[in-house]
């Protein structure tokens, strides 16, 4: 009873509102998983909401038997690994140079970079130029056009600027070259911010949809997101069901949910472990950016 003292109507209302928020955020996932794992007779009678009924893995197996999702996974993982390496290298090197207070042409360079936040040529000129470069319908169409994020570059530059000058100078006294100062002093000192920005690049590439939609034609190059869209939004999931031979044993609805579930599972699994970094990311991004 003592503990209850001081808990007023204010706290009760607040608790209920936040409970509602938590339910709203979790329910779609829980529902998705339970429909994907339920037997057709329960799904068709609309009896599944937050708990699977007549647990079965046929929908998931049917999705696994189709090679499109696998192709999507393989391509996306490849794009993420290659893209993040390229993006991080370019961003770190650029940010390091721009963080030098007396770099020659520093202000013109910054203006040149910041202008791209304000002005975007538009989809069509972008498409035509990518076509002229000959990267349309190749892996480079996914990796190169978004290789650098202007905001991440500026955030990283700001972080490098804030590093204590003394440590760097001591490195120079020890005879380190400009490049070695970057690799053996600046990078080790900036691990948290590098990790955070690296994770943001990973998520951006993982989730990239419209870039692939516009620049890729060949299904064997499609990333996971484009496969997901074709299966669920366009409705190719029906073919999967026919081809897999699971026909009567799986409802189309379960199958679609299984596709979405498998599509976002890596994010859901990995998220709790890296959540802290994203939180820091939001802060450095908004406060200093």
């Amino acid at each position, binding site marked *: 009873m003592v503990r209850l003292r001081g808990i007023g109507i204010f706290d009760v209302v607040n*608790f209920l509102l936040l409970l509602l*928020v938590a339910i709203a955020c979790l329910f779609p996932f829980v529902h998705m998983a339970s429909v994907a794992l339920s037997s057709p007779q329960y799904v068709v009678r609309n009896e599944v909401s937050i708990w699977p009924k007549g647990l079965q893995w046929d929908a998931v197996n049917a999705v696994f038997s189709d090679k499109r999702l696998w192709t999507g996974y393989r391509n996306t993982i490849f794009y993420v690994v290659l893209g993040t390496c390229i993006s991080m290298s370019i961003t770190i090197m650029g940010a390091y140079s721009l963080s030098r207070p007396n770099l020659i042409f520093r202000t013109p360079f910054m203006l040149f970079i910041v202008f791209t936040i304000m002005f975007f040529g*538009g989809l069509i000129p972008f*498409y*035509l130029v990518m076509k002229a470069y000959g990267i349309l319908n190749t892996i480079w169409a996914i990796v190169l056009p978004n290789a650098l994020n202007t905001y991440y570059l500026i955030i990283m530059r700001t972080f490098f600027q804030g590093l204590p000058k003394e440590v760097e100078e001591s490195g120079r006294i020890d005879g380190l070259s400009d490049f070695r100062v970057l690799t053996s002093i600046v990078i080790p000192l900036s691990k948290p911010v590098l990790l955070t920005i690296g994770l943001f690049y990973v998520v951006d590439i993982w989730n990239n*949809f419209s870039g692939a939609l516009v620049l890729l034609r060949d299904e064997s190059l499609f990333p996971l997101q484009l496969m997901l869209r074709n299966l669920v939004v366009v409705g190719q999931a029906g073919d999967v069901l026919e081809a897999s031979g699971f026909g009567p044993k799986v409802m189309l609805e379960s199958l679609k949910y299984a596709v979405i579930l498998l599509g976002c599972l890596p994010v859901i699994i990995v998220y709790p472990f890296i959540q802290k970094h994203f939180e820091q990311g939001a802060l450095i991004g908004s406060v200093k950016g």
Partner: protein
Amino acid sequence: MDLKRSSVLRGVKRDRVYLLLLAPALLYFILFRYVPMFGIVVSFMDYNLFKGVWHSPWVGLKHYRTFVHNPDAWIIIRNTLLLGLYRFIFSFPAPIILAILFHEMRWKRFRRFVQTVSYMPYFLSSVVVSSLMLMLLSPSTGWINKAIQSLGFKPVLFLQDAAWFRTIYIGSDIWQYAGYGTIIFLAALASIDTQLYEAAKIDGANRWRQTLHVTIPGLIPTTVIMFILHIGGIVSVELDKAFLLGNAANRDTSDIISTYVYRIGILSGSFSYAAAIDLSIAVVTMLFIYGSNKISRRLGETSLW
């Protein structure tokens, strides 16, 4: 003059390693940001894929005139601005309100749990979010319509009805971004001096009045900054979700500039006409962002650059 030139040369020589390190980034900006800007010249041509930029005939403002005289143009512009404006009005306050709820939650472990859960949708792709929407809102099998039916109402054709599109778009936006958006406001709340709360308590303010007179004023500076940063979003609504949730049945409200350009330009191949729309929008967006940054500079110390 000579002196100046030699000092530049000396600077270049001194900074050669840095310039070399910066080169890939600059090359990226030139190839993928600036060259496409010049690609906009196709909007003044009758661009033909086979003739290319160099041999297509110049037609001046023909495509701009066509766009202005197209009755669809105004519908699309209206749809884009209304979607952007409504999204701004409804999505902007959501993280602020949620942040206040988090801040006032005294049961820390519960607060931590809800925070973690509410950040997660931010990391889902537009495809996953749109797919979930399509599934949950389906008139025959979606959970939401089942719930509506079990309450004795008729199922609602959410995605086949133009009247519902904006609600669905903005609702899913709030679902996806409100949680993560609280982080910046929570940081502002954490920096409020606790003595202010003590003082308010001594003055006899209850929890509600403390929120009203200490918490909310503490949020105002951050709110102003975020307001200005987000205002540019009114004119630029991205392709992804409008494209994924849009269909022939709800096109009256779901067709926005980016989906129209994609359809007319990439799918139907009217490159020059679509590029003319692109440029018009890019100019408006730039003026908008430039203007909002100017305002933010005048209001306080904060600006984008």
